[in-house]
């Protein structure tokens, strides 16, 4: 959202971080100080040198480095007297808003640590695999006697520590599964890796001909790569989501009995306390207005798109945004008793009732894992029978079966596709929280949209601009530029869009619930409600309006409407074409919802729905066997978001909405919903293809192994080819969506969107 004042692309006076930076400053082990800042608007790589250049000019700052992936900047300095506020100012001057954050607190550190651990394991196993493979090639080409023994011993020296180090993620997972009485894919993996290494060691001791060190380490290498890809994808989405979470601690200004004021945390508020809420602030607790009057934006709580007047005695809830005037609120409920807490409770129970979704890979593991063990056991028994009790060769063959059936390609089948998919989606402005969300999304047959903030942008737009003269618009913009009211902002935007500079209006006053008054060229001007301007009450259209009065005469009437997302109609039409059932479930008034439904061609819609009803409706659809994708942004949608099979939220959603949703989409377009579904379907198709390839390989390889022909060479070749085929097939996803940019390309998360988000979070 653009303000009238030309202060920079993303700058909004209220969104600036004005708090104390000191708590966010970290002292590093070497005694220097560090501050981490998030820059949500950082989307163009050209900004990297711009930001680093500007920060170099900040006196006293030792170094500043932009992390483009994480949209962060890390600033360090040594002088304890340095005031880090200069960093924020320098960034603001460039037009970037920023907030401090604590990496250890936001869980990103843990993610980073886990990711480094996996990457180290990949590196170690890769190194070991390459070296052992070199030695193995020599053995296969005919090294004999003591030379072969030497090579085996060196291989053992590399392989055993590698298995112990790099195998830990699998061993841990396998032990956890076994101790809870279950099988997972990691059980046969761990068994195969360990048995292969131990058996090879035994063979080496006895100057044996074959050793499977290369197989056991290569196996680890491929599987770790799959696991790292899986982790990378989830970590990327998590870090993006955590950046969006509003980091400003929720606090309130409290007036004591003696008239003094102090700031306290929202959690410490008690009933009967007097809370002062300035214009532009969000309420920290439920209460009753005790003094003052203002307009309250409750769109995030109820979906109601028009602000409501709140005067003395009005009931207000935590999370509502106070728009126009300062009010004093007597707290009636805080913490656990608020409307907000009720929503969270509903959400938690909805999540519990969410049927446990079993991922494709896990479903397969349930069959595959026992099958592998049965095959190996059968081989052992069969060979013992045939050879008349030759334990050595029987065991060797059984272990070869374990190695060759080890789900190397299976371990890569899903993570590889999903990592590519998450990259494709990320480029298209969709962040998926985990791979299961992709699998769920591909099976969706019903899409339920919230209206305010989801189908619409959640902000009004002037609809009758064509009938308003430039002079009227200039005066109106002159009045409106100082106001935070959404309608005032819409007036400013309309003026800006037409290239009209706001007129200079003096002595502006904002009267909550009525409008703005001022002096233009000596004459009184007003911009406000019909009633205040003395015109007949509404003609029944039901749309919010402003009247501009000049010299006591009505000059123009401004009509506003909550703007639909530009491509909403096209996206809905496409979804319906694809045979999906599309519905609107909104908390807004009937007239507004009907208008949106008609404009979008949606037949099923409900207005005035409470959060409980939304939740109940989604549950009801689920019971009827429908697979529901819920798309919503508000607090009132959160329980339904949690209840749906899967859910999406725009990045402008409330923190709770974003937490409840499985994926988040950026920008002003609704196209990401469509793209996400397309990509999910393609991902699912490729995953299944990969499974088919991997299983097909096993069908071919297992008989070879069971008959005892699986020499280390055969095992190495078979394993590598199947893994490479699976990876190559996964990479096709990137190609599929590169070739179809028309349907896949959407607007990148842009600055106005983030400013819009900030307004809501402010």
């Amino acid at each position, binding site marked *: 959202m653009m303000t009238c004042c030309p202060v920079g692309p993303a700058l909004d006076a209220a969104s600036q971080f004005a708090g104390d930076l000191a708590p966010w400053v970290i002292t590093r082990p070497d005694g220097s100080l560090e501050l981490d800042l998030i820059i949500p608007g950082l989307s163009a*790589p050209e900004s990297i040198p711009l930001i680093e250049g500007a920060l170099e000019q900040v006196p006293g700052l030792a170094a500043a480095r932009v992390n483009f*992936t994480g949209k962060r900047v890390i600033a360090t300095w040594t002088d304890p007297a340095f005031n880090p506020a200069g960093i924020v100012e320098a960034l603001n001057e460039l037009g970037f808003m920023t907030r401090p954050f604590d990496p250890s607190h936001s869980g990103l550190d843990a993610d980073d640590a886990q990711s480094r651990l996996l990457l180290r394991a990949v590196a170690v196993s890769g190194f070991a695999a390459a070296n052992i493979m070199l030695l193995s090639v020599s053995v296969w080409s005919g090294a004999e006697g003591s030379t072969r023994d030497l090579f085996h011993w060196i291989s053992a020296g590399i392989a055993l520590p590698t298995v112990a180090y790099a195998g830990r993620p699998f061993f841990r997972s396998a032990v956890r599964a076994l101790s809870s009485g279950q099988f997972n894919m990691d059980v046969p993996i761990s068994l195969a890796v360990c048995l292969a290494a131990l058996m090879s060691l035994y063979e080496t001791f006895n100057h044996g001909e074959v050793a499977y060190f290369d197989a056991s380490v290569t196996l680890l290498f491929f599987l770790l790569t799959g696991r790292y890809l899986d982790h990378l994808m989830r970590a990327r989405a998590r870090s993006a989501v955590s950046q969006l979470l509003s980091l400003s601690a929720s606090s309130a200004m409290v007036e004591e009995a003696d008239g003094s004021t102090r700031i306290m945390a929202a959690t410490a508020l008690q009933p009967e306390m007097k809370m002062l809420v300035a214009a532009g602030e969000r309420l920290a607790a439920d209460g009753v207005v005790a003094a003052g009057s203002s307009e309250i934006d409750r769109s995030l709580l109820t979906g109601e798109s028009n602000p409501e007047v709140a005067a003395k005695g009005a009931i207000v809830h935590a999370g509502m945004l106070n728009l126009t005037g300062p009010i004093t609120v007597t707290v009636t409920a805080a913490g656990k008793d608020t409307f907000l807490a009720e929503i969270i409770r509903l959400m938690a129970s909805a999540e519990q009732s969410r049927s446990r979704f079993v991922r494709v890979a896990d479903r397969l593991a349930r069959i595959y894992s026992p099958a592998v063990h049965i095959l190996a056991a059968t081989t052992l028994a069969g060979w013992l029978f045939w050879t008349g009790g030759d334990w050595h060769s029987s065991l060797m063959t059984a272990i070869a079966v374990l190695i060759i059936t080890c789900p190397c390609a299976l371990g890569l089948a899903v993570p590889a596709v999903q990592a590519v998919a998450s990259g494709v989606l990320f480029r298209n402005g969709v962040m998926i929280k985990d791979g299961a969300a992709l699998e769920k999304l591909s099976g969706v047959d019903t899409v339920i949209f919230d209206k305010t903030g989801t189908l619409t942008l959640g902000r009004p737009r002037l609809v009758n601009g064509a009938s308003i003269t430039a002079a009227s618009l200039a005066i109106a913009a002159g009045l409106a530029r100082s106001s935070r009211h959404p309608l005032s902002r819409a007036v400013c935007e309309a003026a800006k869009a037409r290239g009209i500079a706001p007129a200079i209006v003096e002595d502006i006053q904002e009267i909550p619930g009525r409008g703005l008054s001022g002096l233009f060229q000596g004459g009184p001007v007003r911009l406000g409600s019909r009633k205040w301007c003395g015109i007949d009450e509404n003609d029944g259209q039901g749309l919010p309006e402003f009247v501009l009065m000049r010299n006591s005469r009505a000059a123009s009437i401004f009509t506003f409407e909550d703007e639909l997302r530009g491509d909403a109609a096209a996206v809905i039409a496409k979804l319906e074409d694809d045979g999906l059932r599309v519905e609107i479930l909104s908390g807004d008034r009937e007239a507004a919802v009907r208008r949106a439904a008609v404009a979008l061609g949606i037949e099923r819609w409900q207005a005035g729905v409470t959060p409980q009803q939304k939740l109940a409706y989604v549950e009801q659809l689920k019971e009827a066997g429908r697979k529901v994708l819920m798309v919503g942004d508000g607090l009132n949608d959160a329980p339904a978001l949690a209840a749906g099979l899967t859910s999406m939220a725009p990045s402008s959603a409330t923190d709770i909405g974003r937490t409840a949703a499985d994926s988040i989409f950026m920008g002003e377009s609704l196209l990401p919903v469509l793209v996400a579904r397309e990509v999910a379907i393609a991902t699912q198709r490729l995953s299944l293809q990969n499974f088919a390839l991997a299983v097909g390989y096993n069908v071919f390889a297992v008989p070879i192994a069971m008959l005892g022909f699986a020499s280390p060479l055969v095992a190495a070749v078979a394993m590598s080819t199947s893994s490479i085929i699976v990876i190559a097939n996964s990479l096709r996803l990137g190609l599929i969506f590169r070739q179809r940019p028309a349907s896949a390309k959407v607007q990148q998360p842009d600055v106005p969107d983030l400013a819009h988000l900030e307004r809501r979070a402010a």
Partner: protein
Amino acid sequence: MTILLVLIPAALALGAIGLAAFLWSLRNGQFDDLDGAAHRILVDEDRPKRSTDGRD
């Protein structure tokens, strides 16, 4: 075959150097910003470098 006594340690050492370099770069934070690194290579470095003590 005595050449093996030289070649095998040499091969292993080279591999170990590569591994060590990777682990060092990982620890050094060079894998923290993969997207940024991809873009930085295209950025013209024409602004004057400042001395590292922050007081120039």
